[in-house]
């Protein structure tokens, strides 16, 4: 039967050209895998979060105050659109965890007596809730518990309002409000050991925090579709007499905001990167299959001579392209599901939703397959059409010697004496520039992807370097339970091992500029301090001006303020009329929406005669353990963070990311480079087998012939390297822009070392492709090749 024989040919062709089939399918697999893994991870996480928010009844509006009598809650519940109010008491504690060498910071939150009532419900990972009225029972947040190896039944010490007490861990839980467990300390605490949430029974929390019959923290649930803005205004006006610190919508809730930031980055990686990969894959597929079909000219002519129709012939070769895409897609989907599971697992480690499972998103997977398929078929189609349009006899005659011309350089008279071999290579390139360009572009794309994405990791390490080695140079940061007189910091100096102490003040404020309202804090620091300094993206140190405020550049841009403008600031803890602070400098820093002032200028602004919120210490490293243990016994201290631990935690987190994502990017870049070079060389070999065999017959050694073919590919790779690096820089800029947020700036970092490394990886892939080709070249059958006609 006609069709069956052609099908058999298809299978045999696939097997015969397996090297090319595999290397091309691998490129497809890479693109599809990334789409499946990244889209799927993002969607799975988003689903998990949305589902969790709904089930745990995450609030819509959040507010804090100094002390609000409980009956006021009913007035809040009466605000139109509000369906649930959940008043709580909350405060900060210093936690003494057995085995932890420093005092951890704790956020104490009360639990409603009725487990089924209220918002932000606990999801117990193990154990149970604290019984109502039980004063010594606590539920501990899961991240903190895990980092400190705390289990149900363990007990820890907690200093609340200056009183040390022992609490027993009865449960380990998570809640939507603390998906990201963050301390109130300045900087980003990545050290999970050092901060945790403690849920106590309402009674116990009220008495421990001295808030009997009152609340200082409230969450509100809104009816679907209700605009939070008027609710926030109403809440603020009700809570104003009670020291209300300003209500925020869910978007500004700290944990949610950070989660959104993560999702944003995932969206960039999840949408942009796979699309770029897919585009590269499609390009390669198009070129490779086009060239592959072009080399089968004679077969196409023969099939036509036997009486196959153009349609059947075209169908046969398109099926070949389709098979490559199919193989790649199946592998891509399988790998994507595996990788998606891995990624989701990594996120699950940090995010701790109650249930995160990777789910394949069929639409995006199908989209990726269709895109690859379309690119492949389009590439094959152009070549098939070209061959099928020839009269059979003409095609069988084979192409007459290709018309070459002297090189442009030679015609211009610039170069005269070139070795013949070099001339051959250059004329091939000049004769078929598109063909040569396809190899170069493929390799350049691989390199651009590699250097462009790895630069992000370099940026992250650079950020840590600037942050921890230039800006935050203190060994230990100590926070006090509340603003204390400057003596409190001076007392720390007396602790054994403390070499230098610099106190700081954190004043929570609300900044208003037009319609933009942000809750943040002003950090007051000593001008000329040596430990904690103002540092920009490049690591340059800036002086703290004696008066006026320094504002983070990204934050300033968001607020629309410039140097010389003044900021309208509301002090959240003291209330009173808004005050104006002149902006004297902008600081292009890496993290946060920060405002800095000289400590005494801040004291004058607040007008309370000077307070400190904590201190930065330089210590004798030999005595760090003793000192940290000592800090646990200082009642005023609610937490201390060690720079070593922060650096270690950051590095661990980054390295884990780098291990997975870096490996992934390297593998994909290698696959693409390998695909471009191997296919380029392989097709060049089939196009020029005769020529190369002739050279062998004329007495050229295998080495010389290999050098000729692979030298050409090498030259194309060499041309690709600078292009790839420029493209990489472009990609870095693009990704950096996409990552930029109000809270985090990614510097565009072009690292020569990293670029050299990326180039080396790509060159290694090219060398591997060359080695594979060399084997094939060595087996070139001289006699057979010479006996066939062109």
């Amino acid at each position, binding site marked *: 039967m006609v069709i069956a024989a052609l099908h058999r040919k298809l299978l045999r062709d696939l097997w015969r050209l397996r090297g090319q089939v595999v290397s091309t399918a691998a490129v497809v697999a890479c693109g599809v895998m990334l789409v499946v893994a990244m889209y799927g991870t993002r969607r799975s996480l988003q689903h998990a979060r949305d589902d969790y928010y709904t089930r745990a009844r995450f609030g819509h509006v959040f507010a804090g105050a100094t002390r609000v009598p409980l009956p006021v809650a009913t007035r809040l519940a009466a605000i139109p659109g509000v369906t649930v109010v959940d008043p709580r008491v909350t405060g900060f504690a210093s936690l003494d965890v057995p085995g932890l060498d420093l005092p951890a910071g704790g956020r104490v939150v009360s639990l409603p007596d009725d487990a089924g009532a209220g918002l932000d419900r606990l999801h117990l990972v193990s154990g149970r809730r604290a019984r109502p009225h039980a004063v010594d029972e606590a539920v501990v947040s899961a991240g903190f518990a895990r980092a400190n190896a705390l289990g149900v039944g363990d007990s820890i010490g907690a200093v609340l309002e200056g009183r040390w007490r022992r609490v027993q861990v009865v449960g380990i839980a998570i809640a939507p409000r603390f998906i990201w467990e963050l301390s109130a300390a300045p900087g980003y605490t990545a050290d999970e050991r050092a901060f945790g949430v403690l849920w106590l029974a309402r009674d116990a929390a009220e008495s421990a925090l001295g808030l009997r019959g009152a609340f200082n923290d409230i969450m509100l649930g809104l009816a679907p579709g209700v605009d939070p803005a008027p609710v926030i205004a109403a809440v603020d006006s009700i809570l104003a007499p009670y020291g209300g610190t300003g209500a925020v919508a869910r978007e500004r809730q700290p944990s949610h905001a950070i989660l959104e930031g993560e999702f944003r980055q995932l969206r960039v990686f999840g949408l942009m990167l796979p699309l770029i990969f897919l585009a590269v894959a499609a390009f390669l597929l198009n070129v490779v299959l086009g060239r592959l079909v072009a080399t089968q000219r004679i077969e196409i002519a023969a099939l036509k001579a036997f009486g196959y129709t153009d349609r059947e012939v075209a169908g046969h070769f398109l099926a070949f392209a389709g098979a490559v895409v199919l193989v790649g897609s199946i592998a891509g989907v399988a790998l994507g599901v595996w990788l998606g599971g891995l990624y989701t697992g990594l996120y699950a480690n940090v995010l701790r939703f109650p249930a995160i499972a990777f789910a394949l998103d069929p639409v995006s997977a199908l989209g990726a397959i269709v895109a690859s398929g379309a690119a492949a078929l389009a590439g094959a189609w152009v070549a098939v059409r070209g061959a099928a349009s020839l009269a059979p006899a003409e095609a069988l005659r084979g192409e007459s010697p*290709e*018309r070459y011309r002297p090189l442009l350089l030679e015609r211009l008279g610039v170069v005269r004496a070139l070795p013949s071999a070099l001339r051959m290579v250059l004329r091939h390139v000049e004769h078929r520039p598109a063909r040569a360009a396809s190899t170069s572009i493929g390799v350049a794309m691989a390199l651009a992807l590699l250097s462009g994405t790895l630069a992000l990791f370099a940026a992250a390490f650079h950020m840590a370097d600037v942050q921890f080695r230039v800006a935050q140079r203190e060994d230990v940061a100590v926070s006090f339970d509340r603003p204390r007189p400057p003596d409190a910091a001076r007392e720390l100096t007396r602790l054994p091992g403390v070499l230098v102490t610099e106190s700081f003040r954190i004043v929570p404020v609300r900044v208003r500029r037009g319609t933009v309202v942000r809750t943040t804090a002003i950090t007051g620091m000593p001008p000329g301090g040596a430990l904690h300094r103002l540092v920009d993206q490049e690591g340059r140190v800036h002086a703290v001006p004696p008066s006026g405020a320094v504002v983070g550049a990204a934050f300033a841009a968001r607020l629309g303020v410039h140097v010389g403008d003044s900021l309208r600031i509301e002090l959240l803890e003291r209330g009173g009329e808004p005050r104006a602070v002149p902006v004297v400098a902008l600081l292009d820093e890496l993290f946060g929406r920060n405002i800095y002032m000289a400590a005494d200028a801040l004291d004058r602004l607040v007008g309370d005669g000077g307070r400190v919120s904590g201190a930065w210490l330089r210590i004798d490293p030999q005595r760090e353990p003793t000192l940290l243990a000592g800090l646990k016994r200082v009642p005023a201290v609610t937490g201390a963070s060690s720079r070593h631990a922060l650096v270690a935690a950051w590095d661990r987190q980054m390295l884990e990311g780098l291990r997975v994502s870096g490996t992934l990017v390297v593998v994909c870049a290698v696959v693409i480079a390998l695909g471009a070079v191997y296919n380029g060389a392989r097709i060049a070999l089939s196009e020029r087998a005769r020529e190369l065999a*002739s050279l062998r017959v004329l*007495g050229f050694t295998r080495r010389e012939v290999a050098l000729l073919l692979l030298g050409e590919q090498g030259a194309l790779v060499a041309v690709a390297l600078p292009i790839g690096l420029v493209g990489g820089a472009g990609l870095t800029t693009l990704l950096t822009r996409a990552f930029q947020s109000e809270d985090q700036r990614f510097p565009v970092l072009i690292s020569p070392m990293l670029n050299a490394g990326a180039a080396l990886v790509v060159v290694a892939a090219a060398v591997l492709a060359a080695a594979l080709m060399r084997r094939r070249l060595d087996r070139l059958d*001289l006699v057979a090749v*010479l006996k066939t006609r062109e």
Partner: protein
Amino acid sequence: MRIPEALVDRVTAWDEPARDARGTPGAVFEVRGLGKTYHMGDVDVVALRDVDLDVHAGELLVLLGASGSGKSTLLNILGGLDVPTVGTVRFTPVQGASRDLTRADADALTRFRREHVGFVFQFYNLIPALTARENVALVTDIARAPMPAEEALRLVGLGERLDHFPAQLSGGEQQRVAIARAIAKRPDVLLCDEPTGALDAETGRLVLGVIDQVNRELGTATIVITHNAPIAAMADRVLRMTSGRISEASRNTTRVSPSELTW
């Protein structure tokens, strides 16, 4: 149809005329008991069996035979493109030591081709990306004492077309470039496999004329294989091959000029 072995007289090409006896000084190739069997799947195809042959310096030898008679296999083995299954091929250059090609490894065979052998093929095998001059230079670049590429091309009558690309040359011109490329290294032997196979008769005579001229002027031992019997008249010696054996050997008293050949 296979000719029964008994019917094919075993003709030994070296022991027939008195002055061609084995061991005569001046033999470039001494071939003894040469055989070649190809294993094609489960079938063994015998391409050459028990061939004895001497090729002398300066002589022009025409090897006649139908397709499949083994003449190309013999030529490929002599040229170091292939190795025999049994037998020996001793090669003695005009200057230099004698060697056994059957014991040479792939690198040694490459060196042998590079230094001593000129090849001319039916389909020219020129490099399309290089001009006539450059195609010849390709070989002179790697040869030990070549003639200038231009001289080689003048020898074949292409002194005026040095900078033309293959696509700009006729078939006969392309074949003459191939001959120039083959002789530019001043080879000890010139091996021509159906050099006129792709050409019309007139152009073919022209190309054979060049081969004849090179043989006379440079004194290069030349072997021309062809299935075209009239060409045999231009040779010093004619060998006919059948079923992998040399079935007939004869010597021409005079060499007919290629321009007088007709087919």
